[in-house]
């Protein structure tokens, strides 16, 4: 079985993001970047499936600037077999990513595609669903458990009411939730081996995909600062304060 896993380069989760002075986005210069944590979970799941003998080959795909190669290397060091980098310095919105992934899927013909349920930078939570739609494949989103049997995938999903288990026909798209697994750290020998694995470099034009943004960002702002609260003596005072503030 062949598995494709998508990995996005995002601002590291430890970084306190700052809005750019011109409000067009967040500051990315000299900011530590890492693999999207949900994608890390995706890679881990893929590697576990390979270790279990269910999957034979793992292809890691990333899209964006040259540095996305580092993100792919991390996936290779965790256990992916080879990488594809779709290089572009243009903004890529979820629909563009889904279209590019569709083109790659048509070329690579994987049995399953794993993506993070969302990326921690723009929190769109769209790419996996769009990809399944474009391909006409079944989808199992927010997976907290994944089991593959002949031609089928059983996905346990985290939903508001609890857990839901769905059975999908392969090929399928699966997106990962936080509790699917705990990703490993790469071992030193695997980091060294990853250096020798291949990464194919492509461009959106190679796939004939138009990546022009469909949405326009008007303004990015910091969330309002939280100011200190006040203490109220009793319920009556609370109600009058809330009235004063026009909340009730």
């Amino acid at each position, binding site marked *: 079985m062949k598995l494709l896993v998508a990995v996005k380069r995002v601002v590291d989760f430890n970084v306190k993001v700052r809005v750019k002075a011109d409000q067009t986005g967040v500051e990315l210069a000299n900011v530590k970047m*890492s693999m999207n944590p949900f994608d890390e979970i995706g890679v881990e799941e893929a590697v576990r499936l390979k270790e279990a003998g269910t999957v034979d080959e793992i292809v890691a795909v990333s899209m964006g600037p040259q540095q996305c190669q*580092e993100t792919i*290397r*991390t996936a290779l*060091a965790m256990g992916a077999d080879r990488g594809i980098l779709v290089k572009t310095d243009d903004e890529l919105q979820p629909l563009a990513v889904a279209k590019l992934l569709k083109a790659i899927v048509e070329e690579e013909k994987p049995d399953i595609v794993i993506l993070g349920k969302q990326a921690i930078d723009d929190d769109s939570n769209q790419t996996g669903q769009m990809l399944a739609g474009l391909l006409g494949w079944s989808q199992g989103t927010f997976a907290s458990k994944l089991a593959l049997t002949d031609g089928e995938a059983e996905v346990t999903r985290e939903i508001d009411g609890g857990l839901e288990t769905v059975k999908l026909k392969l090929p399928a798209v699966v997106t990962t939730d936080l509790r699917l697994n705990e990703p490993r*750290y*790469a*071992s*030193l*020998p*695997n*980091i*060294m081996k*990853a*250096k020798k694995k291949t990464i194919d470099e492509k461009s959106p034009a190679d796939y004939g995909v138009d990546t022009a943004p469909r949405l326009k960002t008007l303004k990015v702002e910091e969330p309002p600062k939280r100011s200190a609260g006040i203490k109220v003596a009793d319920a009556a005072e609370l109600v009058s304060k809330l009235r004063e503030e026009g909340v009730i």
Partner: protein
Amino acid sequence: MTMPEDIAAEGQDMEQIRQAVRALCADFPGKYWRQKDRDREYPTEFVTALTKSGFLAALIPEEYGGSGLGVTHAGAILEEIQKSGCNGGACHAQMYIMGTILRHGSPEQKARWLPKIASGELRLQAFAVTEPTSGTDTLSLSTTAERDGDHYVVNGQKVWTSRAEHSDLMLLLARTMPKDKVEKRTDGLSVFVVDMRKALGNGLTIRPIRAMINHSTTEVFFDNMKVPAENLIGQEGKGFRCIIDGMNAERILIAHECIGDGRWFIKKATDYANERVVFGRPIGQNQGIQFPIARAYAAIEAADLMVKKAAAMFDAGQPCGPEANMAKMIGSEAAWQAAEACMQTHGGFAFAEEYDIERKFRETRLYQIAPISTNLILAYIAEHVLGLPRSY
């Protein structure tokens, strides 16, 4: 010209190594180390994790199962460990003691030990040089090894032999020819690999030393301990040289640990200085608090340059005695400066165990004394670099 790309690739796998080490260390938070420190326990779980992930085999060539990297990479691993608040002192010697076998051992000896050291099946992390009477004056050591047929018989005593209880093999420096009979001062000493699993109770006694830090350090006694002759490394009587060239690696690696410690202290101090409010302002707003941290930061950055230079020279196979020694000296002093700043910034809370500062403060102090004390480095620079008269 492929140079710039090569450098970029180097930088990238370095960052990956650092990231992986940080991720590993995240599983061993302050709480883990406080318990180990309190109970004077060996951090077995931490060392096992590092071993399994191959980090301790960084310097062993690939043909023996290691990763074949240089001290630049091995140093980065140790730096990240210290920077994460962990303590590489528990196992750093597993990385470099094998260097003596690698550089001076016979092909049979290398094939016999190195693959098992690389996999972690064999631990070679006890290095018995220092003796109670000779101290820093290594050439005056008095533990003897006398040839008797197909083995040597060892008698004497070592002190501060760290990790002896957590190692399978020990690298031992002993006298095989009396000091007054040798032609050259540096002759007459020999290096042996002692299999402690066999020797313990058969002429070898290990006694733990309660020390200021949790370092599993011991004193060891040899009473007619037999060592097979095939465990002699290099030539008999030429052991000092086999040891000396491993010392540069040791110093450079420990210097990296100092840089890691320094960075840990500076981060801890900065965070607290921003957070702690006294007299209605963050204490970090006072220059009396800012400046010592800023000064320590500058010292660490400067020391880091020396450490990187020494490592690059070592990896390029260039003689780097002065650089390795200076890196260790400046690194250990900068780490101490950062420790001081961090301590003072935290006020009384620095003394509370749960801040980890008092523990790291004790731990980082070691590196101005071991593996070589500051005065001896200064004496070395004065004599061998500046050409001043030998002072001792």
